[in-house]
């Protein structure tokens, strides 16, 4: 399967409603310093359930766009996942959505139906996204640290994956 497209609404520097995609097998995100590239990675991390403290923020409210061009809708990100091709161009498609409520909590939906966080995480795991291990996300300036982990940290990393 793959990440097919994203829909981002009032998330950090992404004001208003934006559809981003489709993503190819090897997609590069480019743009000048401060344009919003890492914010896009934060959006992907947010929708798969990564906690706020990992994403340069301390509270969930930090993800709400503070721009004047932001719209009144709540901050939310949707990830459209496409399963492996089933023959004759047919795919399974799942839409994962995470929204910030007015009380600064998170609301989770799968194909537009509300679910609790446990169910959301279970379904992500079923397609191979183990959010706890985060082995599929490498944030800015973190790559060298992967090779310099202490022996204990490496064991912990493999423990989380297994």
């Amino acid at each position: 399967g793959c990440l097919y497209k994203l829909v981002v609404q009032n998330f950090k520097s992404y004001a208003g409603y934006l559809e981003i995609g489709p993503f190819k097998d090897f997609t590069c995100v480019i743009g000048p310093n401060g344009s919003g590239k890492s914010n896009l990675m934060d959006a992907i991390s947010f929708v798969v359930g990564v906690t706020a403290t990992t994403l340069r923020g301390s509270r969930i409210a930090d993800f709400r766009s503070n721009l004047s061009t932001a719209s009144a809708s709540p901050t939310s990100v949707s990830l459209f996942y496409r399963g492996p091709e089933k023959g004759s161009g047919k795919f399974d498609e799942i839409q994962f959505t995470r929204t910030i409520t007015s009380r600064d909590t998170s609301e989770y939906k799968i194909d537009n139906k509300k679910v609790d966080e446990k169910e959301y995480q279970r379904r992500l795991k079923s397609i191979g996204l183990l959010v706890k291990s985060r082995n599929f996300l490498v944030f800015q300036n973190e790559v060298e640290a992967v090779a310099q982990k202490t022996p204990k940290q490496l064991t912990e990393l493999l423990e989380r994956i297994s």
Partner: protein
Amino acid sequence: RCELFNKCFDHVKGCIDEIYKELTCDPTKVEQSVGGSAYLTLNNQEEPYMDGIKYDTIPPGKRFMDMTHLSGGEKTVAALALLFAINSYCPAPFIVLDEVDAALDARNVAKVTRYIQSRRHEQQCVIISLKERFYEKADGLVGICRDITGGHSNVFTLDLSMYEDGIQ
């Protein structure tokens, strides 16, 4: 628990050297045609998850040195090899990397992009990069720029596979 751990460890240990060789070999240079070598070793054989795991790499043509003495670029390549080896155990549908090429010189950028191109159909890659030599090898681009009046991010997508001859 111990069984699961061993299974994971054995898998990663088994493929790390091959992945590192693929990432570091340079077919155009005789002395680097094979690439370097990489090892994972357990500090405590009996109860592996009680103790640590040591990761060592030897860049092509060099002697063994502790990981701390390697250069910035050499550590980045070692880290990417470990990352791909771990990912091959329980592959996520996609991987997102943010400017992992920052410390790489032109030759290592070429090796890393060649490796990513070779595995992109098994695991989708979304990579943020500032280097032309890196992103010109992608299938598609997502360009982001800041709107002068509103300050928000504008997004454009470009399907590079249409320009197969052009960019390459």
